[in-house]
């Protein structure tokens, strides 16, 4: 754009900085294979690169050496799609609070650092390859009840249903979840309570969600359990590591919703 200037510059990708790094990256050829760490050295890393751009450079280097590049999930690179999912130095999305892997920049690391990169670890998220895991379980939990049953064309005028600003703001804060799975990866029990509670809270806080409030809590929790996610022991690592800083209050609300539902219904 300022773009790519001349052909010779293309050869300089990843040659602009002065950081040298040692990487220990989890490699695993498929879900059934035994994986292991591989060591890589990377020089000339720029502090202005994002963490994933640093991986782009690593992959170009591997291709140059005739080795298979590292597979990792990524798409928007703006911190909103929820695809990226690296477990960096023992923390989902790395060292910064409220930041996804794609928005983490190399200025958060020092020259000479060793960085360990693993996939999310949870039996409900089997590894597909290298750092890529299968998060379909989240979609199935949403299918179980994470919606308002309103067919297209049935809606009333939007302003005929005033919603207190505070409720709307709280519902939005819960709805900001990007479904990346960092909460599960952070939890020692691999519990999905933060993810599930964010959706249940959003809809429980809004008048549109009232009709299915009980059945939603029951069905989503039942599906969460069926997927093999662990139980919640209120450690709070999920919220501390969540890149969108989804609050633990949502888990408290989910517990209230669930217990309330169980007292009043026997649907599930």
């Amino acid at each position, binding site marked *: 754009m300022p773009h790519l200037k001349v052909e010779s510059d293309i050869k300089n*990708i990843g040659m602009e900085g002065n950081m040298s790094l040692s990487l220990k990256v989890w490699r695993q050829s*498929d879900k059934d294979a035994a994986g292991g760490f591989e060591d890589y050295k990377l020089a000339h890393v720029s502090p202005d690169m994002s963490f994933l751009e640093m991986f782009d450079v690593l992959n170009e280097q591997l*291709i140059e050496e005739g080795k298979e590049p590292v597979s990792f999930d990524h798409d928007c690179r703006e911190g909103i*799609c929820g695809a990226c999912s690296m477990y960096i130095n023992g923390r989902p999305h790395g060292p910064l609070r409220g930041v996804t892997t794609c928005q983490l920049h190399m200025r958060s690391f020092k020259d000479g650092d060793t960085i360990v990169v693993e996939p999310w670890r949870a039996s409900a998220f089997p590894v597909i390859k290298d750092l890529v895991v299968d998060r379909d379980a989240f979609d199935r939990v949403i299918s179980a009840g994470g919606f308002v049953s309103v067919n297209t064309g049935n*809606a009333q005028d*939007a302003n005929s249903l005033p919603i207190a600003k505070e409720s709307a703001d709280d519902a939005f804060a819960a709805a900001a979840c990007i479904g990346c799975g960092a909460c599960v990866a952070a939890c020692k029990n691999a519990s999905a309570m933060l993810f599930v509670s964010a959706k249940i809270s959003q809809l429980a806080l809004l008048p*549109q969600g009232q009709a299915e409030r009980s059945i939603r809590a029951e069905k989503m929790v039942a599906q969460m359990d069926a997927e093999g996610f662990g139980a919640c022991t209120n450690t709070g690592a999920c919220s501390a590591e969540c890149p969108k800083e989804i609050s633990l209050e949502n888990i408290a609300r989910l517990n209230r919703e669930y217990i309330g539902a169980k007292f009043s219904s026997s649907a599930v």
Partner: protein
Amino acid sequence: MATSSRLDAKIPQGSLESKWSKYRSSVPLVNPANKRNLEIIVVGTGLAGASAAATLAELGYKVKAFCFQDSPRRAHSIAAQGGINAAKNYQNDGDSVYRLFYDTIKGGDYRAREANVHRLAEVSGNIIDQCVAAGVPFAREYGGLLSNRSFGGTQVQRTFYAAGQTGQQLLLGAYSGLQRQVGMGTIKMYNRHEMLDIVNIDGKCRGIIARNLITGELERHGGHAVLLCTGGYGNVFYLSTNAMGSNVTAAWKAHKRGAFFGNPCFTQIHPTCIPVSGEHQSKLTLMSESLRNDGRIWVPKKQNDNRPGNEIPEAERDYYLERRYPAFGNLVPRDIASRAAKERCDAGYGVGTSKLAVYLDFAAAVERYGRGEASKNNIHNASDVDIITWGKAVVKEKYGNLFDMYKQITGEDPYEVPMRIYPAVHYTMGGLWVDYNLMTTVPGLYSLGEANFSDHGANRLGASALMQGLADGYFVIPYTIGAYLASEIRTGKISTDHEAFVKAETEVRERIETLLRIQGKTSPELFHRRLGKIMWDKCGMARNAEGLKEAIQEIRQLRKDFWSDVKVMGNATYFNPELDKANRVADFIELGELMCLDALDRNESCGGHFREEYQTEEGEALRDDENYMYVSAWEHKGPEDWELHKEELVYENIKIAQRSYK
């Protein structure tokens, strides 16, 4: 000029206001028992795809939906920031269906179809109703009613929003509707699947070839209709605000199987993006247009001024948008704001180390809001420091997430120093040519959302992409598809054993094998960068005939190089993103040539298409309505060979004028 006999837009008769309502009431219907036997394939699960899949399943059709991401919720609609337009007139500021229609036609520089755009404006209000009913948490006022803000190219407040995450909230709403149907068994969802060809039988689209990206297996899927909701092709420029995976492959395969490509050269360059920081850059990040509600854009009055922005006194700043366009100021449409920034930087007034940036400054807004807070709290002798502190708090509430993102990416604090911004590729108005029913030139093959060319002419207004995606999916296709499927009730299940399926699958397999066999020296990534450089330099914000002719030659050479020197690692029997990328880059290269061809054909400037040879004395786009008031629809005839068909644009309700925002 007359419309080509190969193009029939099927625009209903009658007055503009009555076309859609009359047509909607007369489209043939399919009864519920027959719907159960009709299969619809939806490719892509962004706003258009997810809303279409959910709605068609609710109606009773059997739906199969495909996305290349690991979940439908990750489609790139999720990244839309600012908002969604609707002609609700909740602000009582004079908005109406007609005004939204008029603003959109004018914003598109008179290169969009009247009937389509009017329909879009008509259903815009229903979209907001539907989203609220589905639990989308839009921003609200203290009275509990919905809040609105302004976007470029309009003088009313009609944009609904959810902080700077409107696309996320809308997509999660549509996704929840889709997952609800998946749970009910009416949609079968295929994640991590990429469509690699369409299959036509006896002149009708009857299915697709998809690749399971985890196992590498090729799959045949039959259907009575196929909907491509696969987004735009901005990544042809390598650097854009699109997601890394956004690609043209599905649309391009359809094009090569008979779907005409409409207005391929109409590209939107968004004025406010974070500038490139170095050669490692993999994508660009947008700073929402909503920031132009409060931010003021400027450059130093002196060329090559190296002082930090904060140290340049007020009198030495050139607020060039306010100077050139006093009526709309910083809220001129995107094409105009982008060109004005380029003009200043090219003339040597750019800022930052690259000199390819202008300032977006919130200092005035901070002070204004700070004084407002002081006055609200009855404080009359507030110190400047307090005023600034209070003002920053207000700005944080409005734009906090965007300011955080800027800081995270650049390492600079935009509360303290002005943001540096520069235009970047953001959206493509061009796409598959579709008629009023959203059907392409292949019967049974439809295209929705950004993937089609239909509603934005030569320039899209802010907050209109979300509107169009959801209009197409929730409120247009569920009606218009009946016009075709009503005649398909006797067809029966589509057999994927037909020789057309076998042939298409074989071709896909052979292409993958070829890619793997070349084993050259250059990675797909580097080919993509080379293509991006050609496209940006010669088919970007400014184009001219000479450059476009050079670009076509360079792209043809690049295509040859690609097919003899690409190096794709691994093989096709497991998860292999390098192979996926190589496939996509190969299609981008072919598309690049067509875009240049289209830009070369259009000897005028309009909207985002700026041909340097055609401009007014003041540097504004100079249209040629006499000769170019048409949609270009390109038919693929063979390698490096296309035939142009023209759809004449007829304006019966709007007086054509030189677009002015002065």
